[in-house]
């Protein structure tokens, strides 16, 4: 449940005394409420659900699973078959 999508903050402004942002999703942008992520900077990513930013994305944590997978590679010398270039 809870369709939440990462988007990049393009602009920050206030409307009716509420903190709002223009958020980019791969080239389309939407006006989203940033009231609960007030420390967000332009260029950062937030998780958006129903026009509302739930949280800022932690970039360090975002890389964690991939570091873990690389570690697996080294540990097991696993050859991942690659039939195509990942998108």
């Amino acid at each position, binding site marked *: 449940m809870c369709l939440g999508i990462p988007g990049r903050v393009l602009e920050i402004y206030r409307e009716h005394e509420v903190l709002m942002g223009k958020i980019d999703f*791969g080239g389309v942008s939407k006006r989203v409420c940033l009231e609960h992520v007030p420390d967000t900077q332009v260029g950062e990513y937030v998780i958006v659900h129903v026009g509302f930013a739930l949280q800022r994305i932690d970039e360090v944590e975002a890389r964690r699973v991939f570091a873990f997978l690389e570690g697996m590679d080294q540990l097991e010398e696993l050859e991942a078959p690659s039939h195509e270039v990942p998108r």
Partner: protein
Amino acid sequence: MDHPREGLFGTCPTPKSHYDRILLGHGSGGQLSAELLKRVFLPALGNDVLNALEDQATLPFGNGRLAFTTDSFVVKPLFFPGGDIGKLAVHGTINDLAVGGAKPLYLSAAFILEEGMLIADLKRIVQSMRLACDEVGVKIVTGDTKVVDRGKGDQLFITTSGIGVVPAGRSLSIRSARHGDCILLSGTIGDHGVAIMSVREGLEFETVLESDSAPLADLTHVMLESCPSIRCMRDPTRGGLASALNELASASRVGIRLLEKRIPIRAEVRGACEMLGLDPLYVANEGKLMAVVPENDAERLLNAMRCHPLGRNAAIVGTVVTDHPGLVVMDTLVGGERVVTMLSGEQLPRIC
């Protein structure tokens, strides 16, 4: 205060076996639309030609064959990024003829106008239709106008019919796909539907994306010249690529294997669909086609398409298989698979 049930059935509403009023979903090109055809139109009007449910009717006429099609256009808003209802009407009818292998020749245009509609808007739309016709060399040769009371007509509805000629020896049909055939797509999916959504009240978002509405007659001509072995073509309008593929699988009684990673899609379309929770496979296209061709001719056809401005992003997206006849199965990005079903009703944005 009741306790949560244990081991008992849940509560359910009384099932409705069918609707007794028209819903918006009946117009979205999915299962509801198909059901309406089966329940209302075919029983009353059916005949050999109509029952084939091709995009156009091809009829014996003198020594050759005539292609004949009709379409209604109710798009809202009337003006959208990349086009308007008039341009859409002309392109849509031309394309229905073109994907049947016909050279489009003449159109009719009937207008239902709502009292109060701005004449300046109507002028813009009609001008747009003229330009669209001239681009392809077709003529609107007959028409009609009616006006309905304010509140009864949503500003403007257009119905266009089109006639074209199919060269002798050419016979494309949605029933003709065979095991081993390749399925080609002429370009990116979902552009039109997303462009419309971006200006729909309640969903507006900002994008540079425009409708892909375009006349495909020249592209189909180039394709058929380079590859006379094309089995059939279809333009995946409402209901999207998924619905067109399901119709193909069902009519030809074959299975279709689709490769998710091969399907061309613009970043903006992906972004909008992710945001709204929509599946691009079900989003409308207005300037794209899919073609089924024997495997040996696929590369040649692909190259011919890519040389044409409307086929620059053409791709081979799937194959026809003997497994799971009637079903479209997609190999997903992570190595699993899923069945791509027909659209149920109207695709609605979701929060879950």
